[in-house]
């Protein structure tokens, strides 16, 4: 096991897959000469050349659209959206094309693209540049939506996404790139659509994913100091959504807190809560709590922004309310 940052893990996954499969290429804004605005593809341009690491114009519609087309024609493009906020400029390609080509043409046409998008708030970038709108994409059947929370999963899931025959939106949280974690030395894949218990516990189930996994683990550590053992279940994939480990855990703890970074209304937590109630109704001992972002566009001012974002303390307070 090596200790890698999230950035290194993503970078390794891309590198290995490009070495493995000449059909894989990267396209996006500043992925080449610049090396990626988050330095994820640093060195790629020199190593793989401009035919495989394509700097594109600022034109998200054709970035994802051409990636779809290249995938239709047999390549395995990885399109990068500098931030997920710009995915709204490619929304039609993502939800009307990536997600639907296969079914609309009865299986004849497929678009196995990977769309990497950097999301999340907390960096004082203002309302348009700080969103965590993951749920919006997860609503669409035909798309897979993956959002890892550890370097280990980031690497294994990205490699699986690139090899998947289905289109995958792969969401990376901007403030996770420096996060460190153990990553196996050899090659490995993580299955898409499988939730994972990232920390065992008996008293309460915290359901979360992406950046909030790290925040939840912090909260769990703090809670452990007061004798509350939280089990942390990481969804990892929002579509398909694997409720198995969530329900299995919940049936033991009978209490749940769902923690996500995005807005609360019509969020990830809404669905997860509804599903727990539906599928484990008799096991519910206390109302399930949702921890999420305040229902406001995120402001620039640091204190205001931080006040709007969910934090470990919010999770701790929610856990205290349910146990």
């Amino acid at each position, binding site marked *: 096991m090596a200790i890698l940052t999230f950035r290194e893990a993503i970078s390794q996954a891309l590198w290995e897959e490009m070495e493995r499969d000449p059909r894989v*290429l990267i396209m996006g804004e500043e992925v080449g000469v610049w090396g990626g605005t988050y330095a994820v593809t640093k060195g790629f341009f020199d190593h793989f050349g401009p*035919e495989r690491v*394509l700097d*594109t*114009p600022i*034109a998200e*519609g*054709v970035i*994802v*659209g*051409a*990636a*779809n*087309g*290249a*995938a*239709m*024609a*047999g*390549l395995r*493009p990885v399109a990068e959206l500098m931030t997920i906020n710009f995915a709204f400029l490619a929304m*039609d*390609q993502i939800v*009307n*094309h990536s997600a639907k*080509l*296969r*079914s*609309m*043409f*009865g*299986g*004849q*046409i*497929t678009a196995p693209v990977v769309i990497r998008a950097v999301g999340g708030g907390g960096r004082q970038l203002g309302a348009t540049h700080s969103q965590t709108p993951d749920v919006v994409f997860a609503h669409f*059947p*035909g798309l*897979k939506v993956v959002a890892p929370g550890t370097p280990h999963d980031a690497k294994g899931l990205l490699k699986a996404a690139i090899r*998947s*025959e*289905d289109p995958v939106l792969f969401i990376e949280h901007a403030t996770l790139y420096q996060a460190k974690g153990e990553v196996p030395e050899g090659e490995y894949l993580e299955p898409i659509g499988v939730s994972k218990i990232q920390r065992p516990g008996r008293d309460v189930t915290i359901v979360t994913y992406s950046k909030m996994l790290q925040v939840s683990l912090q909260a769990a550590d703090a809670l452990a100091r007061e004798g509350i053992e939280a089990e942390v279940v990481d969804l990892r994939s929002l579509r398909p959504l694997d409720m198995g480990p969530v329900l299995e855990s919940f049936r033991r703890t009978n209490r749940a807190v769902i923690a996500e970074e995005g807005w609360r209304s019509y969020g990830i937590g809404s669905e997860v809560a509804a599903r727990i109630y539906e599928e484990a109704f008799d096991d519910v001992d206390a109302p399930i709590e949702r921890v999420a972002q305040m229902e406001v566009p995120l402001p620039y001012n640091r204190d205001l922004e931080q006040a709007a974002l969910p934090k470990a303390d919010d999770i701790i307070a929610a856990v205290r309310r349910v146990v």
Partner: protein
Amino acid sequence: MASGNSKLDKQELLRLYHEMVLVRRLEERSAILYQEGKIGGFLHLYIGQEAVGTGILSVRRPEDRVITAYRDHGIAISCGTSARAVMAELLGKATGTSKGKGGSMHLADVENNFWGGHAIVGAHLPLAAGMALADKYRGEAGVTICFFGDGATNIGYFHEALNLSMLWRLPVLWVCENNLYGMGTAVERASAVSQIRQKAEGYGMPNARVEGMDVLEVRQAAEKALEAVRGNGPFLLEVITYRFRGHSMGDPERYRTSDEVQKYQANDPIGIFRRHLIEERKIKVEELDTEETKVEEEVEDAVRFAESSPEPAPEELFRDIYADPVVPQPDTGQS
């Protein structure tokens, strides 16, 4: 009639004639089936525009990919898709090009390198650029031929795709079928320039504008344009045409006069070609009539095939969503 097509032998000319008539009759028949309620959704007929698809695709090579918008029946036929598979798709049958899941706007036939039938205006232009990118990347010889309407040239996708194709010298033939209207909006009411080819200037892209009622003229222009694409990257070919019917079934056509429509109908691409074949190429009327008869039979056969084909099985609902079939959850019927 355009010269330079004289190399076409009689058999090839009859094939073109046959194809145009087939497209026409299929469309006429589809209109009836729509009125009978056997075809649902939206139905956009290609009647009046046959010379464009037939002319251009008469010079494509099998390795050339083709993609178009929702007005796609004629293009499918010209790509080599059988009338049976087209008609079955219109009727939503399991034997249709898209297993009955796509309908009129979403025909496709990948074996014949026909990549659909796309219903979001302009959205298939980036797809075309991407397919061409793939071919170029792999060093393959094929080019991508992308058809779209005049109305589609005002949407952002057009700009992004044309710019990218020129920037990266992608092998795409952009074919604008300028039928003078996008739904009820005349070109001059939607586009700052009424010559669509002028838009290519903004990308420094070679371009041309031709009349689209003479199939041989279209063919000749396409030949030249494709030559340019094979060597040097994209080309924008504007073809002036006219749709003789409404935008789709149920168009009140308040935006044009019947005088105008009749004027264009007098300029029927099939009539023009027929006259040319008889007068210039000395083909006998009977030979052409034989083709017409063959077409009638083909259409009848296609309709019979489609009508007698099975509906898709109920479980098809959960197929083709992902590479692996989706398993519906028994309790809720939901996946």
